[in-house]
């Protein structure tokens, strides 16, 4: 387990070797800050401001998460450093989980910008703590799912740009699959809806913590991590 942590730490280190991490933090603070300001002055209801913000952040992360997951494996394949990991006494599973964890920590760091808004709301208003907790749990699960899909995409190519585009397509597919479902009736509709990330996140966004949604997100993440480690172990 310690080795997983060292891989995670390495991933986190790598984010801050390039300016992208700082640019992302800056851009995210700017956009989310701007909307928080708008919501505060237009909605004026402390209970719904955070859910509004999270639903907006979900769309923003859909666009930015490929940028922090694209590199995870494809870059190591391109430079060959994946050999350093694969010839060390560490399993493919540990490598993948470590990379996931490192990226998840970076995502959490990005999301920590919202703590500031929460603090502002708690000082000047009375937000619903249950709804906010559900939103954070839902958003962490959504972020983890985005990262796990990004990991799969990143393990499929040596090219970061292709990995990013592929991730974005995966995310878009699972984001809009519910909309595809709306063209169908009965079983197919239920099937498409089940795989819709929006559908599952919306419950958390409304303040509902349902075990179905928890299990959905967790199983997607675990499946993707498993898939990535299988792809990695069949690397030639």
């Amino acid at each position, binding site marked *: 387990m*310690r*080795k997983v942590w*060292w*891989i995670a730490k*390495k991933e986190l*280190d*790598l984010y801050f*070797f390039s300016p992208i991490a700082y640019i992302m933090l800056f851009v995210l603070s700017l956009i989310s800050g701007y909307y928080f300001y708008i919501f505060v002055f237009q909605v004026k209801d402390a209970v719904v401001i955070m859910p509004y913000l999270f639903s907006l952040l979900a769309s923003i992360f859909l666009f930015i998460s490929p940028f922090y997951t694209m590199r995870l494996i494809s870059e190591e394949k391109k*430079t*060959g*450093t*994946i*050999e*350093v*990991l*694969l*010839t*060390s*006494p*560490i*399993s493919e599973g540990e490598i993948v989980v470590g990379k996931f964890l490192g990226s998840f920590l970076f995502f959490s760091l990005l999301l920590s910008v919202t703590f500031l808004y929460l603090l502002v709301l708690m000082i000047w208003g009375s937000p619903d703590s249950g709804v906010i907790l559900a939103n954070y749990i839902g958003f962490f699960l959504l972020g983890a799912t985005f990262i796990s899909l990004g990991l799969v995409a990143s393990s499929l190519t040596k090219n970061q740009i292709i990995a990013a585009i592929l991730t974005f397509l995966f995310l878009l597919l699972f984001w809009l699959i519910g909309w595809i479902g709306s063209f169908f009736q009965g079983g197919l509709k239920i099937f498409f809806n089940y795989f819709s990330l929006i559908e599952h996140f919306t419950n958390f966004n409304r303040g509902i913590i349902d075990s179905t949604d928890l299990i959905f997100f967790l199983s997607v993440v675990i499946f993707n991590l498993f898939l990535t480690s299988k792809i990695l172990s069949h*690397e*030639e």
Partner: protein
Amino acid sequence: MIEVKNVTKYYSNLKAVNDLSFNIQKGEIVGFLGPNGAGKSTTLKIMSGLIRPSSGSVSIFGVDVFLNPIEAKAKIGYLSEKNPLYEDYSVEEYLKFICRIKGLSAIKQKIQSVANKVFISNVMAKTIKTLSKGYKQRVGLASALLGNPELLLLDEPTVGLDPNQIVDIRNVIKSLGETSTILLSTHILQEVSAICDKVIIINEGNLIAIDEPENLSRRLSGENRLILTVKNYNPDVANSLKNIDAISNVEVEGDQDLTKLIVFFQSESEIQNEVLSILLNRGVKIIEMKPDTLSLETIFQKLTKGQDNA
């Protein structure tokens, strides 16, 4: 003992390694020799557990690389041909990271000890991407050495280095041989005769020879050539030349009017005068005579091609 048993590797339809088997005894420094594309890197990658063979098995001191990969990898230090490094890290940070994923303890002492061995103590704080190729190679070697692995797999450790660096790295490898078993791939023959106890030659994925380097260099590099262009040649001349002890063979090309003689002889002997007097005595007119030392690579190429046809 390290056992490679019937290892075959296909890349889609291309057979990179063909039913390769060999053993290495504990403590040996073994040179792994072959032209580019012979399957050396593929074999080393398979032995390191990086890729799986299509069939066959590899056992490292009793541990099967594919059944117990983690345990086997802990016994192996692998330096890849490309020598990939996390170049944004400083040398020290990088070696720390390697220690950690190898699960080592007492990291500081271990890093200091390998840094001294490969002479990188003076660049520990530098970012890897700012280092010269020679230093990067040593950092790669240092990372392979961490944890004192029982087996070192070194894929072309001196490629791309300048002559001084090559000598340095060779000396390091030689000194490592006192404590570890080493399999070292190269296509530079001098390297083998300089440091190895045993040589494995492969070509196009096939095992061609396992031998000691003395025997090998006798086979490979014992010859020089003398090229003569002559007039009035007669076949007697070749026979008389072949009677000289140091001459192993004489090849004749061209016609009687203008003949090219290629005389193969032991590299350390002086045969020019003897050859000249024989030719002059037989009334052969010499137009040109020049020595031609075959490069070791060329001789090697000849051998591998010859073996291939046989």
